């Protein structure tokens, strides 16, 4: 790829602004609350945009476009069935407890509501997870920069070989994120996430408009693609009649209920953004405001993937990757703008079991950028892509330093220190959190299998979480022992279900079936959703059973932590457009309408 001066100017300007915001905010970082919770002083719209932007990492932009190219508009289920209802629920029903209890983190809420061991389990697994997520984000970004040869020309100019681009990408992105988080803490991360949000829209909207114009709008796109690609609910009656390979019940329960509620309602990475809001109403409106742009994101990230696969295949699709020998690998097996996957060591296309080439869907967005953007706006598009990677990284880093400092360091290592001491610790945690992420990024390059394994373990750990929170917040009889053992059994339940089932056509091992194969799912996605459903159900019932056997906490200790013992936040004094409940109804109606339009 040939970037010209104008592209570089745009990229460098963006980095200047990112660091400038951090530098400007440095003077306000006086207490640990400023650093970890942005002083709880931000307006709802800022927290709302940061709420989605923190989640808008590599997986979102690259992954959703890839999924759009692979499954079509059915990918929108991740938004209109998955994210939106969960975001409404966390805003309306859960935020009163998170924000009202004055907990400084999600694990700390578990400490207040249950006990130390439940907090410990959640805090430690979450801390490990954030380090790895940020490492994966870093790895994906460096890999992409390498694949697109973005840094090759400048490296050649200073006499360094092109394979250094991977190391330099990791180093530079780590340093930038480190600098702005260290300088301005969560405020800086949130402000930059807002900046990144607008940048991502500014970079991808013209891409979608050009692509749509090229294929003849939505009608034109429809005529180019199989019907199931443009109708999100077509064939959802059975797992065998739709591209996702999962039936409506597994989709709605597994994705819509268990996984999405588990992520949006309990993941501190996003909840932290709402906790930074200036008031209870602002905190409750944060996820609701976030839901509006979130709902429209499919048009920004899924459509480019669909357009990429719908375009006529050029006679010779040159993959942007270069074979190890330095020879440009040619590929005539791609589909649309999606090239076949190339084996890095042999330089030959990767084939599946049927001998057909495997498509490298992750290149949908980069190839779309290269196809439609001339120099100038190409710089803007690439900057937007980099911004999305960095917002994902910074989100994980700020969540990590908070959980580490408050829930691990202050609880188990050094109790009763001064506020300045913990502020200092937070800064140190930022540095070693990023250092660990770099280590994780390099571990990913070496041991891909270990990483797949870790991601699987994270999936097991996360699946049952929402059952614990739901019971904890809405059933005052739930006890700490119940929550802890319920969570553990849920995790085991997920592992056992995974060990007993297998997606069709997959080999026994990391894909499942490592105990015995008693059931075969039509797709890995179906197996994934049902693993979550099992984990949730096991956690739910074990928590209830053990809670009934153990001694409940007196009501007086649970005020502000449980629904029946907490005064509902009044909305009467607010103008109608400021009321969370009205906003929630509007969001739900809109999401329902989108499902109807694209059914």
């Amino acid at each position, binding site marked *: 790829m040939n970037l010209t001066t104008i592209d570089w100017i*745009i990229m460098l300007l963006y980095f200047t602004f990112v660091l400038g915001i951090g530098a400007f905010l440095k003077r306000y970082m006086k207490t640990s609350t400023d650093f970890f919770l942005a002083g709880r002083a931000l307006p709802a719209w800022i927290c709302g945009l940061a709420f989605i932007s923190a989640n808008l990492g590599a997986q979102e932009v690259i992954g959703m476009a890839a999924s759009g190219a692979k499954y079509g508009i059915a990918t929108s289920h991740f938004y209109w069935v998955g994210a939106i209802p969960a975001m409404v629920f966390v805003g309306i029903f859960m935020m009163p407890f998170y924000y009202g209890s004055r907990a400084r983190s999600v694990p700390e809420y578990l400490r207040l509501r249950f006990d130390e061991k439940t907090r410990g389990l959640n805090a430690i697994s979450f801390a490990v997870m954030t380090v790895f997520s940020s490492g994966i984000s870093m790895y994906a970004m460096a890999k992409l920069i390498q694949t697109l040869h973005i840094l090759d020309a400048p490296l050649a100019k200073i006499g360094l070989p092109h394979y250094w681009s991977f190391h330099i990408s990791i180093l530079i992105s780590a340093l930038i994120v480190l600098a702005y988080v260290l300088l301005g803490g969560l405020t800086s991360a949130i402000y930059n996430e807002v900046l990144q949000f607008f940048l991502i829209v500014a970079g991808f909207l013209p891409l979608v408009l050009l692509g749509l114009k090229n294929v003849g709008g939505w009608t034109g796109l429809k005529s180019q693609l199989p019907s199931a690609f443009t109708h999100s609910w077509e064939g959802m009656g059975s797992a065998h009649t739709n591209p996702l390979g999962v039936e409506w019940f597994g989709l709605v329960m597994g994705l819509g209920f268990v996984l999405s509620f588990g992520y949006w309602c309990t993941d501190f990475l996003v909840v932290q953004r709402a906790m930074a809001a200036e008031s209870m109403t602002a905190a409750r409106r944060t996820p609701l405001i976030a839901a509006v742009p979130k709902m429209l994101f499919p048009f920004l990230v899924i459509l480019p993937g669909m357009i990429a696969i719908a375009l006529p295949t050029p006679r010779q699709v040159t993959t942007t990757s270069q074979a190890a020998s330095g020879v440009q690998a040619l590929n005539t097996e791609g589909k649309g703008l999606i090239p076949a996957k190339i084996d890095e060591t042999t330089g030959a296309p990767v084939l599946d079991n049927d001998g057909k080439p495997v498509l490298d869907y992750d290149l949908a967005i980069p190839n779309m950028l290269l196809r439609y953007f001339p120099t100038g706006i190409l710089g803007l598009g690439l900057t937007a892509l980099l911004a999305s990677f960095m917002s994902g990284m910074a989100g994980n880093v700020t969540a990590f330093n908070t959980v580490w400092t408050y829930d691990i360091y202050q609880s188990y290592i050094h109790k009763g220190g001064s506020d300045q001491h913990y502020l200092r610790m937070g800064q140190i945690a930022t540095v070693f959190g990023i250092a660990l992420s770099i280590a994780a990024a390099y571990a990913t390059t070496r041991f891909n299998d270990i990483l797949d394994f870790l991601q699987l373990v994270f999936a097991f750990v996360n699946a049952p979480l929402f059952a614990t929170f739901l019971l904890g917040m809405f059933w005052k009889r739930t006890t700490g022992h119940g929550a802890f053992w319920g969570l553990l059994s849920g995790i085991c339940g997920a592992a056992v279900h995974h060990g007993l089932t297998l997606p069709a056509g997959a080999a026994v091992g990391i894909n499942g079936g490592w105990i015995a194969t008693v059931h075969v799912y039509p797709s890995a996605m179906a197996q994934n959703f049902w693993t979550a459903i099992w984990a949730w159900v096991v956690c739910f019932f074990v928590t209830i059973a053990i809670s009934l056997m153990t001694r409940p906490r007196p009501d007086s200790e649970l005020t502000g932590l449980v629904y029946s013992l907490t005064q509902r936040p009044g909305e009467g004094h607010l103008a109608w457009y400021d009321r969370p409940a009205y906003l929630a109804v509007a969001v739900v109606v809109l999401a329902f309408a989108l499902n109807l339009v694209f059914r």
Partner: protein
Amino acid sequence: MNLDIRLPIGFMFTLFGVILAAYGLLSNPQIYDRSLGINVNLEWGIALILFGAAMFILGWRRAPRQQR
């Protein structure tokens, strides 16, 4: 907080818009073959200037009230 985020956002996008629009006016029209003959740099540059200016004005109007 004494920094209204709309000010830097407005500033950055106006700057991006000016750069893109200026480049769009000066650049060789041939490079727009791939963008379906549309001078995207110029058109999107103008759109960004409008957005940036709007953000900047919104942030600016609020600024005096913050210095209570």
